[in-house]
């Protein structure tokens, strides 16, 4: 969730109305965003990543104008032709580009901050940290327009004077020495796209631009480039940027890219069935009212027969389906005005069979006076395999630490660790846990118990286990077995219907020493759901 701080004075002047703080809060809360804080000079907003058109202050103002009714319907932006040409040659790494010219830019603090905000957030969200979409902004006057600009993949040996530097370097050097180069080097393999004019390379997207085309306070015209791996995302990112700048009064000029004019701000037409509003949202709106709501959301809409023809602005990347429009209608209507209704769906509730069985088990066990404990299912291989048993653990490929690098295969190690942390609590200590365990290709629930006191032996655990199984109506058989961590002659495997389901025994004193435990411990662990 990106958080952006907007200049309040700038926002209100773009809205064209002096809203009070409560009004700003109310209108922003009406959409999906959340107001963090409104100070005397700033408005901080936590934004939903699916509305990148609102990241820039101009886009936010445009949206607010619609909701408060001062400017409704779709904004029409004039796009003149610049007669600049761009040719795409052999661009495999970032095949899709969007290019536009913006004239009449004046770089005040507010607009610079806005563009930088937008670029940052776009990169982090739609841009998927520049891998999917990246934006470059250049001073148009520093670009040679005598011949077409070329966009093509080049080997890393090609050179440019990078932004912030004085001498020319190869791209390999840039990736190794320049901060942005180092940060995004992982996106480049052996080729990198480049924008080239008659003077040479002026941009290595997604890494950085050249010093030559650097933007400063004197810049009045911009060359915007957007590159990426997703055609739609690239297109819409360009649309968002140019319309934001147009909201400030800048002029958009299109560029011919391989014969096609860009940006293409023509709206998409969606045929919307108004019955969806009642069906999905549950509110009763006449078609005229629906049109009014859509206009507040800055769409153009007109009733055509039984349906509504909606024009989706070129900067709305998030409309994939009619349901997206239905939601926008509900937002314009204001969720505060939607009254909850109790669903009258009659169904019968029930617990899953395994929960019923496990709950029965837990109740029986605590009826024997044991304390239920809860330990994590994520644990470390070290903890799990520290008893001489090598379980087929479900290990993680990308753990955060050694402490949590696998899913537990059995609960016993956690119970022993638990006891070792409670040496100062009163004895007897009788604990149990029922919970998830897993091995590669299988997950299930186990039931583990640990008893410790000054006179505990294997027989105490056995008496308890047999009583519990009897209460559960399960017939089990014990067969003597040997385990390194249990006292020889005091350990057994538990069988139900001929299948081994667990073990029971008394902890070996070597293990007790290892964990600093001073009294005997009897334990067992078996599968919890036995039929």
């Amino acid at each position, binding site marked *: 969730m990106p958080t952006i701080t907007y200049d309040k004075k700038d926002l209100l002047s773009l809205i064209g109305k002096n809203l009070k703080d409560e009004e700003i809060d109310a209108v922003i809360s009406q959409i999906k965003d*959340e107001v963090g804080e409104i100070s005397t000079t700033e408005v901080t907003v936590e934004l*939903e*990543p699916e*509305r990148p058109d609102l990241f820039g202050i101009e886009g936010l103002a445009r949206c607010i104008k619609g909701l408060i009714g001062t400017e409704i319907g779709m904004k029409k932006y004039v796009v003149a032709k610049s007669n600049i040409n761009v040719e795409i040659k052999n661009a495999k790494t970032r095949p899709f580009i969007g290019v536009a010219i913006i004239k009449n830019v004046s770089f005040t603090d507010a607009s610079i901050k806005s563009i930088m905000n937008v670029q940052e957030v776009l990169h982090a969200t739609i841009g998927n*940290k520049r891998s999917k979409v990246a934006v470059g902004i250049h001073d148009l006057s520093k670009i040679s327009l005598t011949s077409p600009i070329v966009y093509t993949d080049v080997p890393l040996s090609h050179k440019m004077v990078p932004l912030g530097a004085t001498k020319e370097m190869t791209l390999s050097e840039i990736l190794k020495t320049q901060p942005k180069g180092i940060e995004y080097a992982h996106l480049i393999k052996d080729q990198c796209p480049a924008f080239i004019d008659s003077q040479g390379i002026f941009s290595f997207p997604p890494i950085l631009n050249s010093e030559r085309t650097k933007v400063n306070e004197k810049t009045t015209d911009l060359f915007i480039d957007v590159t990426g791996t*997703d055609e739609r995302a690239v297109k819409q990112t360009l649309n968002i940027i140019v319309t934001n700048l147009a909201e400030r009064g800048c002029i958009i000029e299109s560029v011919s890219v391989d014969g096609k004019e860009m940006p293409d701000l023509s709206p998409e037409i969606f045929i919307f069935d108004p019955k969806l509003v009642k*069906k*999905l*949202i*549950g*509110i009763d709106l006449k078609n005229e009212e629906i049109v009014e709501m859509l206009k507040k959301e800055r769409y153009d809409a007109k009733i055509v027969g039984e349906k509504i023809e909606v024009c989706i602005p070129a900067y709305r990347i998030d409309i*994939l*389906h*009619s*349901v997206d429009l*239905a*939601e926008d209608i*509900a937002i314009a209507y204001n*969720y*505060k005005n*939607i*009254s*909850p*209704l*109790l*669903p009258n*769906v*009659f*169904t019968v*509730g*029930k*617990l899953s069979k395994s*929960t019923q069985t496990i709950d029965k088990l*837990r109740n029986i*066990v605590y009826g024997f*006076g*044991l*304390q*239920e*404990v*809860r*330990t*994590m*299912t*994520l644990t470390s291989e070290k903890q799990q395999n520290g008893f001489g048993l090598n379980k087929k653990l479900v*290990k*993680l*490929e*990308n*753990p*955060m630490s050694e402490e*949590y690098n696998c*899913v537990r295969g059995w609960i016993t190690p956690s119970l022993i*660790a638990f006891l070792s942390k409670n040496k100062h*609590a*009163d004895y007897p200590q*009788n604990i149990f846990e029922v919970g*998830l365990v*897993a091995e590669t*290709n299988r997950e299930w629930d186990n039931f583990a118990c640990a008893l410790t006191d000054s006179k505990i032996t294997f027989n105490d655990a056995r008496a308890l286990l047999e009583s519990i199984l009897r209460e559960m109506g399960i017939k089990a058989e014990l067969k003597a077995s040997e385990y390194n961590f249990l006292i020889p002659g005091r350990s057994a495997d538990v069988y139900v219907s001929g299948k081994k389901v667990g073990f029971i025994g008394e902890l070996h004193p070597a293990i007790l020493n290892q964990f600093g435990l001073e009294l005997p411990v009897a334990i067992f662990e078996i599968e919890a759901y036995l039929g």
Partner: protein
Amino acid sequence: MELHQHEKLILDFLKQMKAKNKLKVNFDDFLELGLNRDAISRALILLSEKGLAKYFREQTSKSYILGKEGEKYVDSGLPEESLISHGTSFTINDLSEIEKKIGLQWAKRKGWIKIDGANIMLTENGKTAAKNMSGKKMLQKLQNKQQVGEKELLELEGRGDIVKSIINYTEWAEITPAGEKTSYSLGEEVNVLTKDLIVGGGWKNITIRPYNLSFPVEKKFPGKLHPYLSLLDQTKDKLLALGFEEMTGPAIEMNFWNCDALFMPSDHPARGIHDVFYVWEPKEGNIENEVVWEKVRKTHETGGDTGSRGWGKWDPKLAKRMILRSQTTAVSARTLSKLKKEDLPRKFFTIDHVYRPDVVDARHLPEFLQCEGIVVAEDVNLRHLMGFMKFFAESFGIKDVKFQPAFFPFTEPSIVGYIKHPKLGWIEAMPGGIFRPEVTKPLGIDVPVLAWGLGIDRLAMVALGIDDIRMLFSDNLQWLRESNIPLLQ
């Protein structure tokens, strides 16, 4: 000779002491036997009557305290003293009742006054006595618990309830030769009443050791369910009461169910290695349902037949990867894929483990629980979702609920229900929405599906009064033993 159990105890004690060369046994020593003073006294009297012991009682000292009458005279002195305080000569009519009733005769007896008809005159002795007020001083001394000479108090002792005397005794006993020779069966003092004693009648001849209530006994701990799990049991009960069936699904899940079937694009930022745990082995899962697999693929690539434009791409290899489930919505997806039209309407819920790579701190753990549910029915819409959330919150005693629009990749419209906590204010508690057609159609569902979630770990922390999420896995046995399981409204 028939001896009462108490007599036997006292006599036995005297014998034991004599055997240790202690003939004289002080009264207070007998208290060891667990008998009260009266019982000891009675037993000693009986024994001495029988000639088995000698019971001595010697007055050691006598002390005095103010009696009820004396307390009244502390301020004005004895009645005769207050009488002579009236002056050197006065009449009977000047006197108070007490002075007339009591003071007059005593003043006369002490030679302090001369009476002539109704007139009273002080003698020389009387005048001196009026000056000294020695009686009053004595009474005041007594009130202040100071020592007063016995001679002075003797006179007062006979007069009504002015002073009271307390006699201090020492008491002791000695066994007599006859007592030493007497036999009896004492029987042990028994700690535990046994079956034999009960059935055989032996209980009649024994004493059962009395227990001292001021001594503490061992602390007992009950068997107890875990407070958090108990809260979850109660939450499940509430959901059952609302007609929800429990659904289950694997924690070790295929990416397909966790993300792709939920219409999250293959390049969604929340699918990276910083947001989901990928499993080492097995790396890939098996496609269980070819039909659903194909439909999901088409939906991602072109929108399929859902009426959507889709994402324009799909990575099947990523979809096959095995992960630790990062949201229980995966269980909803699986459950929907198994429903047939004739099964509807249905309501499902689950409360189960989910996993996300997160730095461990007071608010985050890589493992936590999510509670979520779905309502699969004809004619349900956003208002019903809001209605359900409000109703569910009310079943926990929460009255203030508000809704904001929200965004989730798999629902549209989406909402978040906020609840008002008395101390924390509005907190985000219930995310939800209506599943997008891109989710439901490929899973074979043609009716609306309302989906809701509950931040159960967070709410449990509030209910249990803890502010560190790690306490939900507390390894503090004392805390668990002392935990009170909150009863949800």
